[in-house]
């Protein structure tokens, strides 16, 4: 079946709710309205108001309640209307949820999900990519799918996981990409990257919407004889160190590409992993392409200037190839 990225996530949650009575959803406007982006559209009619709960606008309470319910063996799926608002619940996530298994041995099988990402002119409070806030919190799994197939397989894996998962849905991709998704039950394992494109000359390590930018660049660069390999991380915590090392060992040159601000961003961490695992294999400097060190501005020309662009990838790839 051809599914959009959004539909794939929606179907994944729907199937888990069909099959497992312990799965339930909570969040703002997710019931009769079906959520700001309609990910839970129609759920309340099928699963009832007990399992599709419209909550007050209270992000800490949403996470706290999801966590509490998970302690009784339920599998809550909490929606953030925008992932930007997850900051309001930061303490619950960082100090309550993430530390619980390490400190007192209680599993917390919950999913915190919602739309993130730029390129839709959402402005500084509706375009952020706050995944790094959670990468630096041991105990959380942080997932950022790039394709409908992965989005469905990963949301199902996250719901079935015994650990708290933070699931970032790129809102630019929601209705822009479509692909064939099998109708049988499958999951995509958390923590495993995938090669989105095989290549010889240099590797682009990236995830989410940037995978598509990298693929576009690869098609254009192929005409110039530059052959990109693209590693789609899929999960940004825990990182697939092996896959990162492998692609570097193969191409010996790396670009790391992400939307969020450069300083303290994921590229720094990946560069350190390469340093630890494949230093001797490098034939050039590790290149970072990332968002500016500012808030993400609203006006389209400014927003695009802040975010990584196709031209950035092409320019940096040419430079690195020639190095």
């Amino acid at each position, binding site marked *: 079946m051809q599914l959009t990225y959004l*539909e794939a996530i*929606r*179907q994944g949650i*729907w199937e888990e709710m*069909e099959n497992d*009575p*312990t799965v339930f959803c909570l969040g703002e406007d997710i019931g009769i309205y*079906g959520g*700001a*982006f*309609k990910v839970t*559209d*129609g759920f309340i*009619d*099928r*699963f*009832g108001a*007990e*399992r599709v709960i419209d*909550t*007050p606008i*209270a992000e*800490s*309470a*949403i996470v*706290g*309640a*999801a*966590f*509490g*319910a998970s*302690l*009784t*063996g*339920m599998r*809550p799926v909490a929606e953030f209307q925008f992932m930007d608002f997850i900051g309001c619940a930061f*303490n*619950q996530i960082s*100090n*309550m949820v993430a*530390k*619980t*298994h*390490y*400190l*007192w*041995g*209680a*599993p*917390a*099988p919950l999913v915190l999900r919602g739309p993130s990402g730029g390129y*839709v002119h*959402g402005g500084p409070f*509706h375009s952020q990519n706050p995944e790094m806030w959670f990468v630096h919190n041991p*105990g959380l*799994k942080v997932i950022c799918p790039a394709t409908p197939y992965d989005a469905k397989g990963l949301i199902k894996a996250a719901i079935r996981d*015994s*650990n708290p998962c933070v699931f970032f849905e790129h809102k630019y991709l*929601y*209705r822009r990409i479509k692909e064939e998704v099998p109708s049988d039950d499958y999951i995509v394992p958390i923590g495993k990257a995938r090669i989105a494109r095989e290549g010889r000359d240099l590797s682009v390590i990236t995830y989410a919407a940037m995978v598509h930018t990298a693929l576009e660049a690869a098609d254009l660069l192929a005409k110039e004889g530059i052959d990109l390999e693209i590693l789609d991380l899929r999960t940004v915590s825990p990182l697939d160190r092996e896959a990162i090392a492998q692609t570097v060992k193969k191409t010996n040159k790396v670009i790391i590409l992400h939307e969020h601000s450069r300083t303290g961003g994921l590229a720094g961490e990946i560069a350190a992993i390469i340093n630890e695992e494949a230093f001797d294999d490098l034939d050039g400097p590790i290149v970072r392409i990332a968002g500016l060190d500012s808030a993400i501005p609203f006006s389209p020309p400014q927003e695009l200037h802040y975010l990584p662009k196709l031209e950035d990838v092409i320019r940096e790839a040419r430079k690195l190839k020639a190095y």
Partner: protein
Amino acid sequence: MGNKKIKHTSNGNRSRNGNSRPKAPILAKAARNGAPKAGAIGSAQGKNGAPKAESANGSGLRTYSIPDYRLEHPDYSVRQLVEKDKDGTQHVRYEVSGDLDAPVPPIRESKYLDKRQAIEIYRYMLLNRKMEIALENLYKQGKVVGGVYFGLGQEACSCASAYALDKDDWFAPMIRNQGSLLVRGFGASDTMMQYMAKADSPTKGRDGTSHFGDIEKRNMVSPISMLGDLIPVMAGVALGARLQGRNLAVMTYIGDGGQSTGVTYEGINFAAVQNLGLVLVVESNLWAYSTPSEMQYRCKDLAERAIGYGIPSVIVDGTDACQVYDASHEAVERAHRGEGPTMIEAKMMRMKGHAIHDAAAYVPKPMFEFWKRRDPIARLENYLVRDKKWLSAKENEKLIAEVDRIIEQEREIAVNSPMPTPESAEGGVFCEDGCHEIKPKYAMPKVKKGSAAYKETEAAAHFK
């Protein structure tokens, strides 16, 4: 220092005069429910926990009242005082003014406790206090890692509240509720080992104090240091249980300081809207570290906050175990009937500093003296031995000796536990395959599915 010039800062004008409170509306109900009904706090709302949208009672008039089980209404207030000494140097300190000589009221007769139960609560309160004395000694011997927190003067609040819970109910203590842990079946050695960071402590050295939990047997959620965050979590426990067909009471505590946090509001409101069986005990102990309650909130009693949430509340004397128990029992019963949350404000005083390092020099001495006369253990002992004659002097002595013996045994266990190995810092960050089986604790939720089939969404959405 010489009191040359005295000036009051703007805070601290809130009156604590309890006399303006309507007298003895013990069984009146809060907020929006109809006529008062005898028997307990609040009244039935929706059945089986389903939140029910109800308009205020027909008249359109709002008549709010808060039951107050106390037999006295302490009348004093604390304010900041700016004074200059002889050299003209300015100093700021706290001053208390009001009636600090009031006689100690009797214990209020419990509507529910029988002799055995009253004695059992007394015994837990003794265990609580003696465990903390043992901890103080362990600290002085250099055996404690970090500080020690005390619930001195609050033993009735911790023990009698937790005593009202049923076996299947859940609770989450705050730092001063070491007595609640004993009531719920943990050993004194568990808490002692936490303080000493021992290998056999419930968290195996990974955290201290009352920061531990048990979701299998004793239904306890581990607190974190951040105040207020347990409240939505406990609401969620009640939500999870309700989806599994059980209306449980979920009890936790919050201080007069901690209640200022935003998550407190979010949590209570969530429980109120979802009609979940939260029993929130507000430990109104007049101080939050060095800050008097006058600088935390402006309303007269924290119980008034409940009106804004649309839930019932009740005020009790936190040094009277019978009042604490009765209010807690009624709140727990409400939760079991699916009638939603209850707030219990327990008025008392933190009788030591914030923790062992803090001499509480900022607390005006007359406040300690006022509340020292209201020692919860001495009051309950007097009630059991002299008023009710449920305990003879001899039996009381025996009971105290037995408590001493238990604490000594527990101390031995704790002291003899080894320190954890350095490497035990590693692992356990994630729940790995096979480490826990995730399954509903009470029952597989009963699923009622609508006939609507899966259909692709075509609806318009935010940000195309």
